[in-house]
């Protein structure tokens, strides 16, 4: 909301600057977001009077105007169609800064004397657009006849405008009077309310009928006859413009002026265009339409509250009037509506019609019905002032349930209880009095209470806590001390899930991966791209099986590609990789985000904390020491083999996996304690390509269900004694069938060695003439150690024999000698 400072200071006279006023209001909860200056650029511009007009010798459309501005008297060349002798105008002298009247974007230019068609023009008579007041550039701006000639325009017209953010609770401050009340309370000064006219109620039966009393709480209808429609006076136009509204004509301007001043929207109908000259407030009938003032033909649903005449809607209540009954130059009789409507209904209608107006913004915050009377009486005062000779001939006020001030009782102790500090009684009472709450300090049931009568315009003050806020904000929050909470403390434990996530993140960072955070939403195209070469959806999304039910979907996504809550991290990380591969040769990223698996339609989805890791492109960039090589399956497997034992996942296994999104020969299921917890594999080249990554680049992906890991059970380190005897390494070259997995061979060795084998490490794989075709030789280095003794040669020989036996039985392996 825009509040011109001159207007505000008229209601609350103060020496404070605009900046100081803004500061006080902001601290008290009325945030001033900006202060704009009207006329800050108006150097060298004066109020002038047009003395005479002469034709331009060389151009029909131009004239020579001689303008007197006191100390300056100039002849200017102008093409303004509306210029006339005797007019007061804004005269710009050379050096003045003006907005370019012909530029669409605001553009400042400096005025220089110029020669136009052979005649020298020494200055310029300005349009509103050139002064930065509006986009109007059809003609020059004509000032009010009272404008003092020779005075700098800035002094006459300049102003500062506060732009306030009106939070939903601040309906009482949604007007100049409202802001004035606030400012008055803050600086301890009473408001000088604008003049209002007495209105004797009386009029014909049936002038106004309310058929929907649940949606219309009050209707003040005033008939004004002998109205002469014309432009409103300059001062009013100026204020409307400063507050961001366009002047239309005196009648409409009065209603807008009252709305800005008091916060009470009004609507003026041309009564002669109302069928039977009467008003009915009712819900719209099926199929009814109305063309509103903005020229849009609108269909009205039956929830819409309308202002109708005897036959048809003539306005959408609280939102916008109808075009057909608008005020025109021919209007003689006005029916002025000053009403109060149910806030939720107005809000629904404004939303449904996509029509937010100054009126609806106020009504939907819940206006005080008593304000209607103030609005109507103020409007009539203005009618009488602006249109001499007009007559009020009927006044109806339908207000079946008048709202009375709310009495509130607040224990005196509530202030220190909530604020942690107390203020003297006198100060508290003074503050509440400045707010016009009529406070009274009493003893009731042996305790001190403050009784207040909350003015009806303060609908936001309903409980004791609200009163505490009033006291605190008027005194100022800066008066509160800084303390720390006392009393009982709570043990601060960090949940296993958070600890796990943190450990996973830290380990992966140490392993060279960078954490990304991606939008957790995807689209169907991305999901379909996870299944190469088929029209249907994949049966698995990353780690998770495709749910029976529809995925979790947004009703109103920001963009279509963010419509589905992701069921896997794979598409998110592939997208991130695709972007990064444009700029990097090596990508190593992870995310500890969530996937969202549907449950029942009205149930919240299963949000599973999941780890996704992705390596793509090169593993090492070529440098002095490394050749560059493409990443592959084993790079990421190594990361998992580092990660999972570190976070306490025992008994880690990998088993071949067939997965629609992964390489058929390079994919594995990850098992912990025999339970599947994740997947790992090179991404299928067709999937890679579908995500706009060069399919020749290898992309390796792993997805681990962290919640599942917790369910399976992570284990603390199990200590084994550290031997003080030298460990002994022995090598075993085992010839097995090509198809035998290496893990099984290693398992057989471990089984044979029992507790004495500290580690088994595969260090070579040999295929070639020295061994039979269809076989491979796996070379393991086994480290033996006993906690309590050195191992003797005999013991080692026995171990070797047992290992040999296990190899033979379990994997049909033979030791090479």
């Amino acid at each position, binding site marked *: 909301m825009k509040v011109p400072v001159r207007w505000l200071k008229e209601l609350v006279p103060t020496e404070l600057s605009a900046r100081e006023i803004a500061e006080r209001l*902001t*601290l*008290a*909860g009325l*945030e001033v*977001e*900006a202060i704009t200056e009207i006329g800050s650029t108006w150097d060298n511009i004066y109020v002038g009077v047009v003395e005479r007009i002469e034709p331009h010798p060389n151009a029909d459309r131009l004239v020579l105007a001689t303008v007197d501005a006191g100390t300056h008297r100039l002849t200017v060349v102008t093409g303004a169609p509306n210029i006339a002798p005797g007019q007061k105008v804004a005269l710009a002298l050379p050096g003045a800064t003006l907005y370019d009247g012909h530029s669409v974007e605001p553009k400042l230019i400096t005025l220089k004397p110029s020669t136009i068609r052979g005649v020298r023009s020494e200055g310029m008579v300005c349009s509103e657009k050139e002064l930065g007041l509006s986009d109007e550039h059809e003609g020059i701006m004509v000032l009010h006849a009272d404008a003092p000639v020779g005075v700098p325009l800035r002094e006459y017209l300049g102003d500062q405008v506060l732009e306030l953010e009106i939070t*939903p609770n601040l309906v009482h401050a949604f007007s100049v009077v409202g802001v004035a009340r606030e400012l008055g309370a803050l600086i301890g000064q009473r408001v000088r309310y604008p003049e209002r006219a007495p209105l004797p109620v009386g009029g014909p039966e049936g002038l106004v009928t309310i058929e929907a009393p649940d949606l219309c709480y009050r209707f003040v209808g005033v008939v004004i006859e002998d109205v002469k429609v014309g432009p409103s006076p300059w001062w009013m136009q100026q204020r409307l413009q400063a507050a961001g509204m366009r002047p239309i004509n005196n009648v409409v301007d009065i209603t807008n002026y009252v709305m800005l001043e008091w916060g009470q929207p009004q609507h003026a109908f041309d009564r002669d265009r109302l069928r039977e000259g009467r008003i009915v407030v009712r819900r719209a009938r099926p199929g009814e339409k109305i063309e509103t003032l903005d020229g849009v033909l609108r269909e009205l649903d039956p929830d819409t509250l309308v202002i109708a005449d005897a036959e048809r809607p003539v306005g959408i209540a609280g939102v916008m009037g109808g075009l057909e009954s608008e005020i025109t130059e021919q209007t003689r009789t006005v029916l002025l509506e000053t009403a109060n409507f149910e806030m*939720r209904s107005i*809000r629904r209608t404004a939303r449904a019609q996509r029509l937010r107006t100054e009126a609806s913004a106020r009504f939907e*915050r819940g206006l005080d019905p008593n304000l209607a009377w103030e609005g109507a009486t103020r409007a009539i005062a203005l009618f009488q002032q602006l249109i001499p000779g007009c007559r009020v001939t009927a006044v109806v006020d339908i207000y079946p349930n008048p709202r009375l001030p709310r009495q509130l009782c607040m224990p005196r102790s509530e202030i*220190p209880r*909530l*604020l*942690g*500090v107390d203020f003297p009684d006198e100060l508290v009472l003074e503050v509440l009095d400045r707010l016009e709450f009529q406070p009274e300090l009493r003893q009731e049931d042996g305790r001190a209470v403050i009784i207040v009568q909350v003015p009806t315009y303060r609908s936001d003050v309903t409980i004791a*806590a*609200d009163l*505490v*806020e009033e006291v605190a904000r008027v005194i100022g*929050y*800066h008066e*509160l*001390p800084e*303390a*720390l*909470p006392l*009393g009982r403390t*709570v*043990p*601060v*434990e*960090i*949940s296993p*899930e958070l600890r796990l996530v*943190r450990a996973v*993140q830290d380990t992966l*960072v140490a392993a*060279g991966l*960078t*954490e990304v*955070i*991606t*939008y957790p939403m995807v689209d169907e195209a991305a999901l379909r791209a996870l299944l190469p070469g088929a029209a249907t959806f994949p049966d698995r999304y990353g780690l998770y099986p495709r749910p029976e039910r529809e995925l*979790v*979907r*947004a009703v*109103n996504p920001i963009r279509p590609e963010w419509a589905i*809550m992701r069921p896997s991290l794979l598409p998110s990380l592939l997208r991130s990789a695709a972007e990064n591969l444009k*700029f*990097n040769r090596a*990508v190593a*990223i*992870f995310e500890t985000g*969530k996937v*969202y698996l549907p449950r029942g*339609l009205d149930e*919240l989805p299963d*949000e599973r904390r999941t780890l996704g890791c992705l390596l793509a492109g090169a593993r090492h960039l070529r*440098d002095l020491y490394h050749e560059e090589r493409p990443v592959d399956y084993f790079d990421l497997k190594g990361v998992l083999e580092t990660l999972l034992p570190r976070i306490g996942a025992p008994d880690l296994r990998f088993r071949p996996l067939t997965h629609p999104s992964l390489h058929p020969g390079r994919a594995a299921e990850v098992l912990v304690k025999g339970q599947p917890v994740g997947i790992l594999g090179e991404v299928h080249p067709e999937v890679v390509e579908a995500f706009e990554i060069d399919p020749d680049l290898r992309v390796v992906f792993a997805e681990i269900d962290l919640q599942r890991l917790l369910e399976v059970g992570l284990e603390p380190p199990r200590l084994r004694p550290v031997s003080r005897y030298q460990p002994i390494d022995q090598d075993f070259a085992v010839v097995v069938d090509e198809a035998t997995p290496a893990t099984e061979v290693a398992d057989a060795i471990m089984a044979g060695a029992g507790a004495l084998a500290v580690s088994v490490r595969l260090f070579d794989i040999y295929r070639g003439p020295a061994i039979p075709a269809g076989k491979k030789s796996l070379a393991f280095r086994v480290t033996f150690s006993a906690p309590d003794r050195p191992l003797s040669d005999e013991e080692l020989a026995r171990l070797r024999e047992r290992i040999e036996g296990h190899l033979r039985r379990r994997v049909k392996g033979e030791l090479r000698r």
Partner: protein
Amino acid sequence: MSGEVERIRQQALAELQQASSTAALAEWHGRYLGRRGELTQLMRRISQVPPEERPAYGQAVNALKEELAARFEQREAEVKRSELSQRLAAEAVDVTLPGRAADVGGLHPVTQMIREVTTIFNHLGFQTVEGPEVEYGYYAFDALNIPQDHPARDVWDTIFIVSDQKEIVLRPHTSPMQIRTMERRQPPVRVVVPGRCYRFEAVDATHEWHFHQIEGLAVDEHITMADLKGTLAEFARQLFGQERKVRFRCDYFPFVEPGVDFAIDCMFCRGEGCRVCKGTGWIEILGAGMVHPQVLRNVGYDPERYTGWAFGMGVERLVMLKYGVPDIRLFYQGDLRFLAQFNRALA
């Protein structure tokens, strides 16, 4: 014979001085001190010495042996040291050549900030908890004193989730966890809640539809707004520097009363007024207030007995302020060239 001893001594010492490699030394050692070396020979020749001179002769040979052994040891050390320094000289490198990199990744700046903020509050006695991102309208709005069709609801432009009877939304703030936490436990409550939030909002340099918040909540007997002010001031000083000034001003959120906007003095202009603080000298970093009595009632707490306060802050904004990130969109574009700049062990 003693002349012979002296001759050998002279010769041995001269040769020792000549021996300048480990191999030459070994050879010298064999020649003089070895089993068949010169000194053994000398000792054998004792039989040719007149008996009365024998003790003196023996002593002289033994003395020579000891002397040579000592000299050898000394020389050996010299030679070894000289050989080592030759080797080391030959091994000299250009110390400015690049090292072999230890590949270390990094945490996302938002994760780092969440850790930093929650750690500060953990130390102030707040427990970190998390809640669902897909949330019932009841928890996101109604229980927080934001009824259906209330204009306050417009402040949160919400993304809705397909459902049947119940309203389900992507939480527009972390505040639903206030309700969930209080429903689950009795006072005293002190929690801090980080998490993702979503709004139906056009994306620009300062707005994201997907962002992170950290919520805080303290409820007990005797919890006051002065505590809130002190706690937030302490937090802001730990995060943004001990010299920070703080500002508390009145603001409106439906689930608190009185409501607070919390700001720190602008670190870019030190309060003078600049583009970042829009000329005000203050930077708003969070909203807060005393928990509304209706919210306490909604979870079955007695508002006459308990008071509490809550606050909520945008994580991205904190990172942007602390590190001068110009555009919020950088966080979720996932560009490693941006993210890598936050690869620090200490923030």
